[in-house]
């Protein structure tokens, strides 16, 4: 009993040491977040912001999900709040510029977007900003030639911009296909670029419709701007309607002739032999009857 008591005291002491060790342990350091804002305008409609949040794990950037950021236009105040977004599993969150900041939007041709994260148990607080100038693209098509014009808002008027790189392509399911062998174009002094359409054989819909796109990507001054236009320059898709045709999957009266020929000739041949053999039995019977 005495020995047992000693063991109990020793166990308590050991537990106490362990407890004190964890009590004095430092909390794990919080991670740093990298926040980036991207600006998008499609077809000259309502602009949107795409926020990307990453953190470094084992020396490599990984997207962070579930981070809620507050977004503001030009300054961090209640009247200029764009809203808040929470990142998805790709570490991304998208928000459209709301009508509540229309007044602020109209005050300037250049705007700064602010994103703030106030920090949580795992990550330190983080901030990011992006400044863009308001711009737009006009897309015109004549006789399989595409002309795109890049314009920037100066004071109250749109003026052409020289030296902006943009791509002109055809929208496809998995990506955009350049309209010819030139991957990107640069605007001239009139803000224009011209491209010849050389994808005649590209499949379009029933009417040969394809969607052209002109886009400025990741531009430091203008962000991401794109404009689309539907033209009927693609190869027309003529659907082959097999309904009511002789196919393997048609109704019974529409079986392919070749199949019927093969199947019925085998059937006639085999059953012909069998009928012959039944008649053969009658012949044997006749011989037997004659003897009776």
């Amino acid at each position, binding site marked *: 009993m005495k020995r047992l008591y000693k063991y109990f005291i020793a166990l308590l002491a050991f537990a106490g040491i362990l407890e004190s060790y964890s009590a004095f342990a430092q909390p794990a350091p919080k991670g740093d977040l990298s926040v980036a804002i991207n600006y998008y305008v499609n077809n000259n409609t309502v602009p949107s912001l795409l926020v990307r949040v990453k953190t470094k794990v084992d020396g490599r950037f990984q997207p962070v999900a579930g981070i809620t950021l507050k977004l503001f236009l030009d300054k961090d105040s209640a009247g200029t709040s764009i809203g808040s977004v929470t990142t998805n599993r790709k570490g991304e969150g998208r928000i459209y510029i709301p009508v509540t900041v229309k007044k602020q939007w109209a005050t300037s041709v250049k705007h700064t977007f602010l994103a703030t994260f106030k920090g949580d148990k795992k990550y330190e607080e983080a901030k990011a900003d992006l400044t863009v100038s308001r711009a737009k693209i006009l897309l015109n098509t004549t006789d399989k030639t595409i002309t795109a014009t890049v314009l920037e808002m100066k004071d109250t008027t749109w003026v052409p911009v020289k030296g902006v790189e943009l791509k002109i392509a055809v929208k496809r399911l998995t990506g955009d296909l350049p309209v010819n062998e030139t991957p990107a174009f640069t605007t001239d002094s009139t803000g224009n670029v011209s491209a010849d359409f050389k994808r005649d054989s590209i499949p379009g819909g029933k009417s040969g419709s394809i969607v052209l796109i002109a886009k400025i990507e990741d531009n430091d001054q203008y962000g991401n701007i794109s404009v689309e236009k539907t033209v009927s320059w693609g190869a027309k898709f003529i659907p082959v309607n097999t309904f009511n045709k002789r*196919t*393997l*999957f*048609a*109704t*019974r009266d529409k*079986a*392919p002739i070749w*199949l*019927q020929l093969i*199947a*019925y000739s085998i*059937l006639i041949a*085999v*059953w012909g*032999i*069998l009928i*012959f*053999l*039944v008649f*053969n*039995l009658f*012949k*044997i*019977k006749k*011989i*037997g*009857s004659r*003897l009776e």
Partner: protein
Amino acid sequence: MENSIIDEKIINDLLPQKFGKAGKIWIALLTVICLVGLFAYYRQLRYGLVVTAMRDYVSWGIYISNFVFFVAISLVGSLITAIFRLAGVKWGSPLTRIAEIIAVAAIIFASLIIIVDMGSPERFYYLFTHGRIQSPIIWDVIVITTYFFISLLLLYYPLLPDIKILLRFKEKSGNGLHKFYGYLGSFWKGTPAQFKLSEKAINILCITIIPVAFTIHTVTSWLFATTYRPGWDSTNFGAYFIAGAFLVGAGAVVVAMYVFRKAYHLEKYITENHFEKMGRVVVLLSLLYLYFNMNEFLTPFFKMKKSEEGYLTGLFSGDFAPVFWFAILIGMIIPIIILLFKSGRKPLPVFIVGIMVIIGAWFKRYLIVTPTLLHPFLPMHDAPASYLHYFPSWEEWAITIGSLAGALLIITLLARIFPVIPIQETLTEQHEKAV
């Protein structure tokens, strides 16, 4: 004089015999199992296919496994009768009747089990009135009907000379059977002209049955192979099925040989030499089937496509692994090991191997059908969790076991009515030997 005594002895030995006590118990047992199966089928007709465990995932359960098993076993008629005959294999002639009886019984139940699987039996009629020639199911219906008819003819033609002999023993066969024999073949007088016509017909049947037998099982395999599913999407399936069918058919013949030999004391006619030779046939067929199995499973295993991974791992190491390895071991590997030794080709070991092959083959058919259905390329949405597993209901088991008992009942009754070893052929061989 001496010849006629020997002839009478042979006839006496080979005449169908009345059931003894064991035979009557056997018939009663099979009848009871069939009746339970019939009751289960009544329940299925009364309440619908909902009494089975088949649902949206597994829509072909043990009924179709059983159907494939019956079709496979029926191929033995073409192997033993036709292929052996055309190849000039003389020792196989005492086994032809047994093979044909098994083939007829199996093909009858293959047709019946398909009707059971349809749910409403009138659908069978609709197959003929509304069937599409483009559908492999219609090919199967046509070819099964054809094969059934050929098997009947192949059983009937060689029976004619034996019926003439049976008609001589009215007091032994009884009034009812005597009348039946008279109806079947009283016209057979054994004239050279009749023999000539009969021989010609049997030869034509033997030639015709081989392509039809190959077609019946190839088309059955196409019911699966023309469907795009893991495990069925294979160009190997026709040959794989044929090889398996010949194996199980040969297994059934050795089992029947042993049982008839024991029950009717036919040791002089079904000799140890027959078991030795059939043992060699079974080992050859087992090796062939094992080869096709390796083709069927090794290459998909090596590639392990993502879409087939669930199905393959389920077979090799998952839920179906015990049944899979049991079927491979019992149905092929152990039979090969036993039969490679001379002492393994004695009657009793060959009989045991035959049973192993049949059991292995039945489970193999189960594995061909069910695991594939549980692993479609595109899983269903919102399917209840219970649909992801399949274990047959008691009705399915009762109907399946009832059909197996039914096939055995037909074999037993045919063996009661007709000589299991062709009498006339045995007499002719005896005379040829004497000369």
